[in-house]
């Protein structure tokens, strides 16, 4: 089975929008799906893994380039 990748872009969102959007996306995802979040606020980059941690989910990849970051969380 191939896990689905669900993309969510929070680039233009500010507190608490990125956390809310990530949570809503994770709620709708199926177990195994990968939620890929992109954005540019450094505070969200720090806090989105806290949402994952609180949910007992794992951040499987984090990348940053030219001030933009990408975080992958496995549902």
């Amino acid at each position, binding site marked *: 089975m191939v896990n689905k990748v669900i993309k969510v872009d929070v680039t*233009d*969102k*500010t*507190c*608490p*929008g990125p*956390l*809310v959007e*990530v*949570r*809503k996306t*994770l*709620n709708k995802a199926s177990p195994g799906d990968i939620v890929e979040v992109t954005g540019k606020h450094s505070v969200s980059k720090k806090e989105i893994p*806290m*949402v994952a941690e*609180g*949910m*007992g*989910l794992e951040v499987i990849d984090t990348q940053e380039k030219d001030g933009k970051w990408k975080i992958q969380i496995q*549902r």
Partner: protein
Amino acid sequence: MENPNPKIGEKMVDKTTIIVHSGDTDKLYSALIIGDGALAMGMESTMFFTFWGLERLKKDELDKGPISKMSKSMFDSQLKKANVDTLEKLITDYKELGGKIIACEMTMEIMGIKKEELNQELIDEYGAIGTYIHEARESKINLFI
């Protein structure tokens, strides 16, 4: 009904309770940002709207509160510039993530507010101090705003 904010791997479900006493727009932003943040982080959340806070739950009154320290136009433009969501969006997200809202019945009596005047679709329960304490006694975060 399907749980809008299902517990996925949370070890323990903690709760945030907030008394919204102020009807000031800036304070309402704080309250809803905290409520939404708590839900996003996997907590439960209950907001108890009382006194001036309850006025904001009247139909079309959500963003009609006073603002301290700044003019409304300045406040609105600063928030817009920073891309902050509107109160309408924040409260819609709050409900979508399963946040609970209690309206204070005592305030309704004192201020002569009728249920029909309130945004009833936002309100989960009408109650007084007993209802609030019942919710708050086991909460981890409890705020008065």
